[in-house]
């Protein structure tokens, strides 16, 4: 799987399936992420997967050939902090722990922001619950399969994930309840920690209750099954390792609190989100095998975001933290390549290190690096073709594909804009005519 030449031959072994999609992108600079840069390279796509990557791949007879001379091919960007395509509130704000709710239940295929992100080369996102409570709802890993029903956006077989949140937001500093509503617990960082610890203690009790019931049944003793509690099931699944924790955090003290608490209670934190003070405890984060997803140069928007630096990314990377840049924003999600590029200016990361920040590193944080995040044979054909090196401010996306299907095409987009403008004009004209007719009708009645 390492050498491009070897990959080339793997292709010949693949059975040709009737009507399977075959696309050859050639003459491109291929940024594989995991195997360096291939000048004048090609990527062959069969069906939903990457079938070959290398220099001189001949076009199969049935292949659609995309000539990418002068262009760059890069894996689809992965954003580990998104709130795109959520219908209704991203926060179930009511309780300190709302682990029973699921973002996956309320995704909508109707959010144009998903399409706009495709135009910036972003193909996969971790869509998170908000940060209003210590333990928020379950998050959802999705691909922006624009034009498909939303059930197809959910990445099948992806790990289940949940949002934790520390600091100002869950202690209600930024979410004041309306007048007349009793103040929500917790109101301090201590309380946040207590909510998380208590939730796991409750989960252990809950699991013991079920174990007891199962044991009774095995002994053929009379027994009534306990209540299935969706919140406790979630907590138990975190303890069982079935749900990954992605935690919103800012300050180094609370980061350490969570890492210590995870050791104490026996759960695994997969990624620290925002983590603006990660640089202060980078070694400890790395020692715990925890990732960090952060902004490159956003800070100062609240008290706990004051002690920050754009060098955070580079410092975390250099201390061995699996680091990504993510968006928390529909807008930033459209150009995460820029944030990756800034890490070369602030802290001197290499081009390869910078590219990994928005590709293979977030893929690893999502535990999907066997499927996405790099251009390798056998991985999902989630790719973007850029007009220039994607770390350049002048680069634009020409084409984006997910699992081999072109989901954004700049030329087609321009044509569609015309067609949509025509449709809108026609529809508005129809309504204007109807409004006029109604007016006249009413006037006639009046006259009569």
């Amino acid at each position, binding site marked *: 799987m390492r050498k491009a030449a070897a990959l080339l031959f793997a292709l010949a072994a693949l059975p040709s399936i009737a009507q399977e999609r075959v696309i050859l992108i050639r003459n491109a600079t291929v940024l594989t992420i995991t195997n360096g840069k291939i000048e004048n390279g090609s990527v062959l796509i069969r069906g939903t997967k990457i079938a070959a990557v290398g220099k001189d791949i001949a076009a199969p007879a049935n292949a659609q050939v995309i000539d990418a001379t002068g262009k760059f091919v890069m894996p689809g960007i992965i954003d580990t902090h998104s709130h795109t395509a959520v219908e209704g509130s991203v926060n179930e704000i009511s309780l300190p722990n709302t682990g029973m709710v699921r973002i996956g239940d309320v995704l909508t295929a109707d959010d144009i922001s998903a399409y706009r992100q495709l135009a910036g080369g972003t193909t996969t996102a971790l869509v998170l619950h908000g940060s209003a409570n210590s333990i928020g709802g379950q998050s959802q890993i999705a691909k922006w399969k624009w034009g498909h029903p939303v059930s197809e956006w959910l990445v099948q077989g992806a790990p289940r994930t949940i949002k934790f949140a520390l600091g100002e937001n869950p202690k209600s500093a930024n979410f004041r309840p309306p007048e007349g509503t009793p103040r929500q617990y917790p109101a301090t960082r201590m309380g946040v920690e207590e909510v998380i610890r208590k939730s796991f203690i409750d989960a252990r009790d809950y699991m013991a209750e079920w174990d007891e019931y199962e044991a009774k049944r095995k002994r053929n003793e009379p027994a009534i*099954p306990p*209540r299935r509690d969706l919140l406790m099931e979630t907590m138990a699944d975190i303890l069982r390792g079935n749900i990954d924790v992605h935690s919103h955090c800012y300050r180094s003290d609370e980061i350490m609190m969570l890492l210590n608490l995870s050791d104490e209670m026996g759960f695994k934190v997969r990624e620290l989100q925002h983590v603006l003070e990660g640089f202060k405890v980078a070694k400890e984060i790395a020692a715990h095998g925890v990732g960090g997803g952060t902004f490159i140069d956003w800070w100062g928007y609240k008290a706990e975001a004051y002690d920050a630096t754009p060098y955070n990314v580079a410092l975390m990377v250099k201390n061995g933290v699996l680091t990504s840049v993510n968006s928390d924003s529909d807008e930033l999600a459209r150009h995460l390549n820029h944030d990756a590029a800034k890490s070369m200016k602030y802290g001197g990361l290499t081009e390869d290190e910078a590219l990994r920040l928005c590709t293979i590193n977030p893929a690893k944080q999502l535990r999907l690096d066997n499927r996405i995040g790099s251009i390798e044979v056998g991985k999902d054909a989630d790719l973007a073709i850029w007009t220039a090196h994607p770390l350049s401010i002048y680069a634009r996306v020409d084409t984006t594909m997910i699992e081999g299907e072109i989901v954004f095409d700049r030329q087609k987009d321009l044509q569609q804009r015309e067609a949509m403008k025509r449709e809108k004009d026609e529809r508005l004209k129809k*309504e204007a005519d109807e409004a006029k007719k109604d007016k006249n009708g009413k006037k006639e009645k009046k006259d009569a």
Partner: protein
Amino acid sequence: MRPAAEVSMNLRRLVAVCLFLAAPAVFADAPGVYAITGGTVHPVSGPAIENGVVIIRDGLIEAVGKNDIALPRDATPIDVKGAHVYPGLIDAQTSLGFTAPAPRRGFGGGGGGGARRETEQTPEPAPDTLAIRTVKISDDDADARRATGVTTIITASAAGIFNGQSVVLNLGNGPIESRVIKSPASMQLSFNPRPAWTYPDSLMGVISYMRQTMMDAQQHQTARDIYERNPSGLRRPAENPSLEALRPVLARTLPVVFVADSEEMIRRAQVIAREFNLNYMIAGARQGYAMANELKNIPVLVSVRWPVAPSDENDRKDQPLRVIRFRQLAPTTPFALQKAGAQFALVSGAGKTGDFLPGIRKAIANGLSADDALRATTLAPARIFGFDRQLGTLERGKIANVVVSDKPIFDEKAKVTHVFVDGREIRLPRDDAKKAETAASPIDGTWNVTVRATQGSVAISVTLHAEDGQLTGTYTGDRGSGDIRGGTFDGTTFEFTISATAQNAAETTDWVFHGTLSGTTVQGNVNTTLGTFEFSGSKSR
């Protein structure tokens, strides 16, 4: 759910009602014998009969046929020459007879089993709430409905998540219990988040709440069954009438009506229905045109309260194509369902009484035939809810709900001239009385509202309409546009919720407006996730 004491009180009330029904009822306006002649009879069960006859006796239809039927000597003749005779229309999903209760605040437990602190007088409906016990239909409301040809409604509260168990009611006179055709007719569920800080206050929370409640009902049923089989050695499971009320739902004997308008919401309802193997139908469904083929095996109650374009041309231009497309395609839903072979009814849903016939006409203008529209407001809903042996057509032996209109009933200029419910002729209000009935509420109209948020002023234009204590309408402005939700108006104070787009456009959050109306100004507070802000506004024009 509800405290047990209250439920047992309701049971006592039910017993009293039953005793009352057992007593011989004497009504001043006892059903008589009528012969309706000269009109075109539309029996729905068969082709139209020119110059047909309908004979009504003692509340039932005695005969339907051509003018060669011998008229009974004791019949009061009613000559409706040139007019059209129909089975009374059925509006199979409405909240007529319910005022939306003020939303509760309190702490939510995890679904059905959780304890909750009640802080308000009016409890939210629960699975064991029976519409028949709380429905209150004023004479004016009944008059207004009957004037649109509707003689039967299926009604339930629109409040809360579990709206309770709906009732099929004839719009006759007399005590409510005597008008019931079927109770319960369905268990109705709506995706209504509760006010912020009360679980569940988000759509995803509502879905979890529904799921947990259904799971609790399963557990409750299992626990009760095991205990009742042999209580020895077992701790007695708690009684829970609310969960017990879901037993027929889990057994598929009581259908579930999910109120779901958009394609995504319909799919969410379907996911829950499949998860718990429910016998279900969809109400609302105005985006059904996008998935008609997928709906052909599920009864659909299409709300004909079609989305309305903003009156100002510039406001229309500002809207995205998606929104314009939805409101123009929504009225094609009935025809799309007809073509797909789906079983559907046309209903007023959350609409105003006066919207029903114009809404049906719009469906007809968008392809549905008048015959199919008639079927969708008579036989189809009767079949969907299983009372088609009693109502839905003009056939011998059926309940005599009959309406006469001077022109085909879905014609724009048609006027309902006679209404019979349970064989009694109902006098229709005079036109001027009807006008007073539909007179605008003082809150009706467009309001320019300014919210003083900490980040600066936010301008929003809200178009409101109040009816039966419910407030409906649309909003547009600095924080996006759409339909208002959860609106109530008691004559002075009002409440409604909008989905406000955050400044960075990354998310929408609920803004809950509480305000008071005085003359042409409104003021009050907006509760948001960012805090509570004041707002004020005035009526435009």
